[in-house]
């Protein structure tokens, strides 16, 4: 295989890995938005917090797999608390979606600072678990196994999510509440509890992505900023509340990012925002969305 083809293949898989990671983050975000109409600005901070929790659990137990289990659950718990004790109050303030956006913005600022105070501002390193260290040969290209693991992990979480959404009673309720929360509530479902669970589930997914990303990125307080911003773009481009749209947008933006860095490094952050502006110019609801 020529070096040029290898480069394309490597960047292509890079883009796929980042796209899947991005989808993991964005699907939680879009699920919450679709159901509750809340764009959780603190979603990126949850991602970052989970990576830090991973560092701590890893330090205490030495097991990466245990931290993959525990850290996202911690973040999910935090998400549930934020929903129950803060967002619900904010929704009653009569400011509409503005209150929710500003409240979650406050949560993200507080989390970023709390992390700095707890773990310090220096970057921390997480080692790739030994079972997934090393390279694998794909058609003559040496590629790190761990990045392939990220793709697989994202697919597994996605499969679990689809199972819950499409095969369980809870999933039916959630899907119904996405299209009409008022009607579902009128049919006798306690939507408050469902909202709380969905918020926890969405936060859990950000947490899983945070732990998955920790070994390939340096863990630092600004870790969630970039991917959080990218996830907002994915949710907007894919259409608010649309999982399928988020998948397509995340994969596309992952590749756009990978090849943008390769060919026009100076302007790669611009590409993402320009694409979002372009989509909104022609379809204000996003590609597969029905609501604004």
């Amino acid at each position: 295989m020529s070096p040029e083809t290898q480069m394309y293949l490597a960047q292509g898989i890079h883009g796929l890995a980042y796209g899947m990671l991005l989808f993991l983050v964005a699907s939680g975000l879009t699920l919450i938005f679709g159901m509750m109409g809340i764009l959780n600005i603190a979603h990126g901070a949850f991602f970052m917090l989970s990576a830090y929790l991973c560092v701590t659990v890893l330090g205490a137990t030495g097991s990466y797999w245990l931290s993959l289990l525990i850290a996202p659950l911690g973040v999910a718990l935090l998400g549930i608390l934020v929903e129950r004790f803060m967002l619900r109050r904010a929704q009653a303030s009569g400011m509409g979606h503005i209150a929710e956006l500003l409240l979650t913005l406050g949560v993200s600022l507080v989390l970023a600072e709390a992390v700095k105070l707890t773990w310090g501002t220096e970057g921390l390193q997480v080692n790739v678990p030994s079972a997934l260290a090393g390279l694998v040969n794909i058609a003559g290209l040496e590629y790190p196994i761990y990045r392939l693991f990220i793709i697989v992990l994202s697919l597994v979480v996605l499969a679990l999510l689809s199972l819950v959404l499409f095969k369980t009673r809870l999933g039916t309720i959630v899907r119904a509440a996405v299209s009409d929360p008022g009607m579902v509530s009128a049919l006798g479902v306690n939507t408050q509890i469902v909202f709380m669970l969905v918020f926890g589930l969405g936060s859990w997914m950000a947490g899983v992505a945070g732990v998955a990303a920790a070994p390939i990125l340096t863990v630092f307080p600004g870790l969630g900023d970039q991917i959080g911003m990218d996830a907002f773009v994915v949710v907007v481009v894919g259409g608010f509340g649309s999982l399928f749209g988020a998948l397509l947008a995340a994969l596309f933006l992952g590749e756009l990012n990978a090849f943008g860095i390769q060919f026009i490094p100076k302007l790669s952050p611009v590409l993402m925002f320009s694409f979002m502006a372009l989509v909104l110019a022609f379809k204000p609801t996003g590609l597969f969305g029905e609501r604004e």
Partner: protein
Amino acid sequence: MKRPVVWLAGALAVLAAIPFVFGPLHTNLMVRLAIEALFAVSLNLLLSYTGLLSFGHALYFGVGAYGAALILTHLQGIPILVAVLLSALAAALVGLVLSPLLVRVRATAFTMLTLAFGQLMFVLCSKFREVTGGEDGIMGWTTPPLALPGLFSLDLRQPVNIYFFAVGLACLGILAMWFFTKTPMGSVMISIRDNQKRVDYLGYQVVLTKAVIFCFSGFFAGLAGAVYAVFNNLVSVGGVLHIMVSFQPLMAILVGGIGTFFGPILGSGLLLLLEEVTQAYPELALMISGVIFILVVMFLPGGAISFGARLRAWWRKRAYLRKARESEA
């Protein structure tokens, strides 16, 4: 005389007296307040009057600041007022250019789009260092005096002179926006906030009105940015285009009182005081911002300005109860 006129004259008299009462050294705080308040009120036109939450208002502030810095650096001898007005016009022009996109989206999509444009400008200004100086920014230009040839000439490096320059422009800007909210177009703006569809069906120009509001709000945010540039003699991406620059006026509006015209001015003052008090702990600044956002949204959605109304309601209730008790006895 009418009451508002008396209030206005009183406020202007107090503002004019401040540098002579408190001494010239404390005027810097007032200049910062003037810039912050003008910026916050311009954002408030969108937030409280049109019902649109912007996470990227630093875009206009930054364009105004960079505009002033570039004009003053490259066009020697241009009158300062012309430079400042041109910079504000540049910011208004940015609003006009973006308006075809901005008018199409509402609610959260609007917030995300403004966030994107703000970040876009931040990245562009950091990368094109030939024009903007990158992360170092632009500094060290000579600010021309505020002068009318043959009449007077004021050196703006003097604290008292920059005080009158900044506070004067801020007052003019805030008054202009106050009058704007009272015009027929201002009423259409408020109606768009309450029910855009109905306004549209009634035959008003929703798209055009919104475009005018974006230009208008952008103009005064740019004016605040230009005054900031003249005052600091330094413009950098971190100082004028960073996302925290967009959050600062949002916080002022929230703290002062969302949905009111004068709340943001009060909020800017309170935040500036808080900043002075916590100056010794710069690492806590973001934490404090976050806590303010959370606490105000949760416990005081009306902001500080609602304290007055609450106090009055409490007083009335007390008086009423006392009267009721007396009549019983």
